[in-house]
């Protein structure tokens, strides 16, 4: 076998939570790894690395996307929001984050960032979901701790909090 040479690294800019970061990454570096390991934004979690569990869900121009299915080099033209960017400018948790706390919608917390980003975007699209709508909103994310009961409640509570603002 031939000697493997050091990989080519690409200079890219990632705009994450309103801040522009410059970094040099190989083309194959996953966005999830770039966020976590290069930028230290470890709130985005990796549960399966094949796009099924939803733990790594981030917002790409406001829409949910799986960071484990994207290469960092392809994310340069987008506005990325991670769980660290959901709170208000004063650091206060957003309605979804508050609702998860109120409803005991998390236990170990590992899947939680993916739910928070998904629901934050979901409620922007559908601010007053029906009960079925609330269940559908989280139907692409896996949680092994909660049995989803309190997560569904949290979605509905977040909608209430948002509408009473």
């Amino acid at each position, binding site marked *: *076998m031939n*000697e*493997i*040479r*050091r990989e080519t690294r690409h200079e890219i800019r990632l705009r994450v939570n309103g801040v522009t970061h410059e970094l040099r990454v190989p083309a194959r*570096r996953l966005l999830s*790894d770039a966020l*976590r*390991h*290069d*930028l*230290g*934004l*470890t*709130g*985005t*979690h990796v*549960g*399966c*690395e*094949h796009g*099924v*569990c939803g*733990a790594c869900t981030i917002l790409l121009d406001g829409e949910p996307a799986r960071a484990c299915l994207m290469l960092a080099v392809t994310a340069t033209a987008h506005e990325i929001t*991670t*769980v*660290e960017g*959901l*709170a208000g400018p004063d*650091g206060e*948790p957003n309605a979804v*984050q508050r609702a*998860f*706390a*109120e409803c*005991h919608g*998390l*236990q*170990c*917390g*590992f899947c*939680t*960032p993916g739910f*928070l980003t998904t629901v934050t975007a979901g409620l922007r699209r559908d601010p007053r979901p029906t*009960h079925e709508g609330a*269940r559908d909103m989280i*139907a*692409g*994310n*896996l*949680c*092994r*701790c*909660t*049995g*989803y*009961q*309190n*997560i*569904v409640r949290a979605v509905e509570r977040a909608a209430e909090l948002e509408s009473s603002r």
Partner: protein
Amino acid sequence: MTTRLMGQPVARVEDRRFLLGEGRYVDDVLTGPDGPGTLHAAVLRSPHAHARILDIDVSGVLDVDGVHAVYTYDDLTGPMAEPLPVLIPHPALTHGRTQYALARDEVNHVGEAIAFVVAEDRYLAEDAVDRIVVDYEVLPAVVGLDAARAADRLVHDDVPGNVGARLEQTVGDAPAAIAAAPHRLALDLEIERSACMPMEGRGTVARWDRDADRLVLWSSTQTSTGVRAAVAAKLGLDIGRVDVITPDVGGGFGVKIVHPWPEELLVPMAARALDRAVKFTEDRREHFVSSAHERGQTQHVEVGFDDDGRLLGLDVEFWHDHGAYTPYGLIVPIITSTQLLGPYKPGAYRVAFESMYTNTVIVTPYRGAGRPQGCFAMERTMDAIAAYLGRDRAEVRAVNFIRPDEFPYDHGLVFQDGRALEYDSGDYPASLDKLRKLIDWDGFAAFRRACAEQGRTVGIGLACYVEGTGVGPYEGAHVHVETTGKVKVATGLTTQGQSHATAFAQIVADELGVRFDDVEVVTGDTRRMPYAVGTFASRAAVMSGSAIHKAARRTREKALRLAADALEASVEDLEIVDGIVGVRGTDRSVPLGTLSVLSNPLRYAFDEASQAATQFSVGDAEAPPVAEGEEPGLEGRDFYSPVHATFASGMHAVIVETDPETAEIRILRYAVVHDCGHLINPMVVEGQIHGGVAQGIGGALYERMAYDDSGQLLNASFMDFLMPYVSEIPDAIDIDHLETPSPLNPLGIKGAGEAGVIPVSAVIAAAISDAEGFPITAMPISPSDLHTLREEHRA
């Protein structure tokens, strides 16, 4: 007066961190600015289920730019070259076998670790793994219990019949009692494998701290003290030079109690050799093929009973698939064999099991730990008796219950902890009453008729369980009041989502008389509490909760002694409210923070508060500054070590609908009655039940480990292993609590962590049987399984 927090649904203190993305899990350690310099590991794993290793060629590996080291078995020395420990030896485990940290000569399941590569990032480490060339002599694989029992081929050449252990326990003469009984039945039952599948897999980070001359290791484990002892022993280090920190853990459910994993040893070994921090984070496929599974059993039950359905004799044999190795001993089948009895008196009882080797991933406790299988055997038997006699299934169960006046009830068996299987308390008739109301058991016949008129098929089932929780040997706690009045609490067991920081702070706030917000709890850090066992067997609340209560009491007693001196009052007249010790009926008081200052006589003052504690400020000049029998500091340390486990219990009922055409199975209603003694935090307990039921539904209807005959796991991804999303879990799980306190601990609590999962396969099988009119004897069951059964019963 401070409101008592025990029993209150106090909001979790851990949530804010998690919700803001500030949790710290093991793969988050040494990232970002701390990341550069950290090396990453990848493992070459066996592609074969059974093979001899003829040669390993690693010559191309170090050519990969950025690769720092590659290790195979030949590079291991001393204790590292010995097999991994049998953690829980049992005399019946006559043929215990464990793997090596890296395979030596032979591999026994797909996924077994063969080589360990350390590189500058995980991508490069995986590139390097791909360049390792192994020459295998592939051997025939033993997959499944039928193949293991047939023993045409052996997993280990020196284990005849593939039998690792055979254990039998008897109370009375069950075969004779069954032979003499008015009625007899026999059942053959089967449960397939599933797995814990925490959202976060295993992971370990280690750094040799040259400045402090010690090893610091972070692991996503359920036992930091266990990992610490194992790493020290294997690497030949003094235990006092090893610190193990368990950061936030993304779920465990049992799998992370196994230790040391090969990587938990190889990471610190490499970190020390390379003088660099090393990190290993497994990916999902690795978790499927190289961590652990559970549940697989085949069972044969014989039972004799009277006209009322009362058990006269019960004779159970079962075969337990423990996979390729037995690091965790016989815990799972021993639990099945003893907890199978549930809330019932079996009459004479004989149980025997064989724990069998197969060329598959190891089997170690998964939430429930053998109880779901035992519950399935017992509850299917109860239903069979009821069907045979044409009696109501709830009534047949009630006839067999241990009555409330019969506690403590000694079954005459030895439990998983080597102690007597003696139930401490319970009220099973009261639980059954609550369950019948919650699911409307008596109203179901009318509901069924109404559904039938619409062409719908529905069925109802119930299942009961008893769960030994809070097994020993012990847990400890340290409570320290700082001079600010803040209370720092440490207990050694670990946390994987159970809300310990909240529940334990509730206990301290109540006992010490301080504000909940002033209490901070640390778990799983050997620097803070080096004596601990771990988090498993629904033991954390019982064991650490009790230890923390006792340590808080000691702290309180010391505070009162100090305050009695300071306030010139007698201890009996003092009370502590919101962190202030006062003399009842007066305005004389002193804050705990001040007492903390006074408890530590100082030579040097460094701020205003500490001036009050210098030798020239306090104390009797004739007496020693630290009184005889006292220690400096306002703190307390204590341990809790009960004689045996405390037994929680519960009952589930479910109504299912089965589609006449597609055989789809839909849960219409799910009801849980749960008795874990006094509740610390009902919100947390209900969350545990929700999660347990959801895992149970996964195990009953969706999850199975699909091995082919060559030992390849065909569904080793979340695309193919059907873990439930919200769409698979019913919309409401109705829960009612009964609180029968345990007499064995100061708070009267019993464990709650595993309860939700235990009876789910049994209760769903019961409801499907009821809907379809034929027995369900194997779980999980898919629509196509049900369709096949329909065809068979039609024929």
